């Protein structure tokens, strides 16, 4: 195959990307697949054990617990995020004085970063001196100071609350862009027709922002599914494994217990769960072009 000068140039420009994908995307992928069948602790040589990692996974109650916790968190966080992000966007569709200041504050909350926001929430949710209890509970006469991060039944709801505070504004920003792109005439027609809020939502807003909204739903779900930052900083999986999401479980197995083969096998399982979603998104993206 003889390449024209222009083709060669293109190839040279794309070369760094090719190197990246080979070395840091395809290779780790294959390596994880390979290690999934090995017993490997970094010290001794990897030893082939067939499907033992996978069968160990299925029979391991901690793994099943982690999957359950992960699904709890994924739906518990992403459903309210998607609903409230849309409501946020609809609020910000309107013009009002000071909108700009509020928008800046919301962006601060969601973009401030993992460590600052989780460190703040860790103190805010403290049983004795946390302001969250003070503002929303016992100042209003509710009896107890809730021990958010120490109680196995409350820890996950607390983590969901933390995720809502960053997730809702974050995805709302995407939706604000889409909602403000809807032509004014559409609303005027709806007004003449006497459509109520839900009819406007159903027939004007949702069809217009459909693609962005689907993107938001899927991104929010995927990112919740593999989320571990706040869990690592705030609860470390506890109390009683009630917040040990799957990516944290993988992380613990790999880097605390040196079970790299086992961790790789779990990585592969997560990828197998995510890949149909990813390809579904890409196919949709292709259709909407």
């Amino acid at each position, binding site marked *: 195959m003889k390449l024209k000068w222009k083709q060669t140039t293109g190839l040279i420009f794309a070369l760094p990307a090719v190197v990246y994908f080979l070395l840091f995307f395809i290779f780790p992928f294959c390596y*994880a697949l390979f290690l999934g069948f090995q017993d490997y602790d970094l010290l001794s040589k990897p030893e082939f054990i067939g499907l033992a990692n996978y069968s160990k996974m299925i029979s391991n109650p901690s793994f099943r617990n982690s999957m359950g916790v992960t699904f709890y968190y994924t739906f518990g966080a992403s459903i309210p995020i998607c609903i409230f992000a849309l409501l946020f966007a609809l609020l910000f569709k309107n013009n009002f004085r000071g909108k700009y200041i509020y928008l800046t*504050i919301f962006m601060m909350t969601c973009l401030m970063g993992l460590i600052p926001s989780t460190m703040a929430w860790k103190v805010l949710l403290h049983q004795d001196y946390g302001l969250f209890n003070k503002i929303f509970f016992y100042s209003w006469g509710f009896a107890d100071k809730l021990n958010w991060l120490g109680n196995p039944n409350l820890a996950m709801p607390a983590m969901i609350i933390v995720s809502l505070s960053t997730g809702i504004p974050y995805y709302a920003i995407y939706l604000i*862009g889409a909602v403000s792109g809807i032509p004014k005439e559409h609303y005027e027609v709806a007004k003449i027709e006497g459509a109520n809020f839900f009819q406007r939502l159903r027939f004007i807003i949702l069809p217009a922002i459909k693609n962005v909204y689907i993107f938001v739903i899927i991104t929010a779900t995927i990112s919740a599914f593999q989320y571990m930052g706040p869990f690592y900083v705030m609860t470390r999986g506890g109390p009683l494994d009630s917040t040990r999401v799957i990516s944290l479980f993988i992380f613990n197995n790999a880097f605390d217990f040196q079970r790299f083969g086992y961790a790789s096998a779990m990585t592969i399982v997560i990828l197998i769960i995510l890949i149909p979603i990813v390809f579904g998104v890409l196919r949709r993206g292709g259709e909407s072009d």
Partner: protein
Amino acid sequence: MRGYFKNKKTGFLHDFKFNIIMIFLIIFFALPVFYLASSAFMTRIEIWQGMFFPAKMQWSNIYTAMVEYNMFHYFKNSLFFTVIIVSSNLFFCSLAGYALAKFNFPGKKLIFSLVLVSMMIPPVILIVPLFMEVRAMGLLNTPWAMIIPWFIDPFGIFLMRQSMVDISEEHLNAARIEGANEFWIFLRIAIPFSLPALVALTLYRFLYVWNDLFWPLLVVGGDKWRTLPVAITKFDAQYFEATELKMATSFVAALPILIILIVFSKKVFSAMSRTGGLKY
């Protein structure tokens, strides 16, 4: 998007209604930002009493954390890595984006589908094999381990490609006839053309790299190259009681972002809605 921030004539009652709703929302959503900024200047006792504001601004918290506990060193490390990774991303993403937008070469379709797929696969998932690869390369505990696996970013390639598709072919060909070489054309025509996308990419990557916790936690063990997020988690585990110093350090970690948001909030907003609109 234009005119979005401009406030058209609105009645007092209208403004009032929305401001009331917003204030209720702010109580919850601004709580972490507000508390971070306020507790960074409290005494330990004030935090443990559940105060909202410090009685007197304790500037010494910042000094103690930064100098006595050496957080400023980690801050500099974070800044160093962020600047290097973001600039490397800007250069290589636009180069690859330009190639995908304006050239035809064998394998182009395959590269583009890899871009799309890897954009959706969260990096946390590949962290275990990637760690072992970097370990096998002998890069552990060197600054290279922090930089090399992230020298380019798939979403960045996509962003730059989408922006550079719109460069007119005549313009490029005119430059070619003038005898300009391809790299010069890339630098002087393609790059200036896609400045807004570059701003969006800078912001996007800055936020990601500055806040990244797990990769630095795994690959740089020593004190020398430790970044601020890692240092804060270690400090959190080690000095259980020093709440005010943790808050002061976290506040300093958030400060660059908060300043960017206050100064450029319009730019950040449009860059963010731009990346969101492009990503689906």
